[in-house]
């Protein structure tokens, strides 16, 4: 595993992070559930809680799908190529390429979904980018989530040992231990309005 230069991380007082979607994407709840699942994978092994906010104002993390040049100096490049990018802590920006064909999987395990396709598994990319948002850089371990590349048709969503060791080097483990089902639901909450 690796880190951004200077090992930036979220300050100790920030373990309950909120995230919001840019409204102009008009994402369906089905798509938003993919992000909730991806955040849960990281909250299970860290002290973080992630809560969705309907309001961008005050959200710690802002998520959006953009095409080409979108104002951050790192333009996307059409189908395939670069899929997404994310900022280091505590900036909280997650951008995905809206020119990609995204597959909303059913939440299943990591596997090869299709032999040859340009369709990319959304959850696999989101789990990776959340790793950056929390402070991880890329890893050479091929089954690690933080390995930089993924083939269309592949799904890789479970955190590998390398990912967990890296993120716990920054923040320690999940104080609730196993992060099991019931805890998962209490840890992964979604606000109905701008309550957060």
């Amino acid at each position, binding site marked *: 595993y690796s880190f951004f*230069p200077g090992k930036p991380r979220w300050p100790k007082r920030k373990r309950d992070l909120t995230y919001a979607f840019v409204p102009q994407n008009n994402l*369906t709840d089905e798509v938003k559930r993919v992000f909730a699942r991806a955040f849960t994978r990281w909250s299970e092994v860290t002290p973080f809680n992630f809560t969705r906010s309907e309001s961008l104002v005050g959200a710690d993390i802002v998520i959006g799908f953009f095409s080409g040049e979108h104002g951050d100096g790192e333009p996307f490049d059409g189908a*395939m*190529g670069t899929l997404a990018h*994310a900022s280091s802590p505590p900036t909280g920006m997650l951008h995905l390429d809206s020119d990609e064909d995204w597959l909303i999987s059913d939440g299943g395990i990591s596997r090869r979904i*299709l032999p040859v*396709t340009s369709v990319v598994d959304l959850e696999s990319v989101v789990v990776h980018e959340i790793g950056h948002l929390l402070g991880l850089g890329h890893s*050479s371990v091929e089954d690690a989530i933080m390995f930089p590349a*993924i083939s269309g048709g592949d799904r890789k969503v479970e955190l590998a040992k390398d990912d967990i060791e890296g993120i716990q080097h920054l923040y320690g483990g999940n104080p609730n231990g196993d992060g099991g089902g019931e805890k998962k639901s209490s840890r992964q909450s979604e606000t109905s309005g701008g309550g957060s």
Partner: protein
Amino acid sequence: KFYTNVSSIPPLQFLNATQNAWETFSKLAGCHIGEKIDGLSKLKRYFHRFGYISAAAVDNCTDDFDDVLQSAIDTYQKNFNLKVTGKLDSSTLRQIVKPRCGNPDMIDGVSEMNGGRKLRTTER
């Protein structure tokens, strides 16, 4: 576009996989230092994007297969667990054209991506 299940993906998609922006790199297979091949400057900009070549070196980059490009390929091959040949062999190009995260592998010329393994090698 979002496809909610595999069966909803139209057959056309199976062809798009070969239409990505980096597919053109495949024609550079077998290139090595000393050659001048059309398209190498685009590949240098790819390596700059992911931190393997500095901004200064990429500003007026040419289609020459030079030391800068060879060094970038060496480091890339180390980072992606490929045989370090310094050449554009097929396994390296297969990895290069794969879709990936836009975040760089190296920042300010430093790569920790394979750092742990390198350190262990040094200790050994």
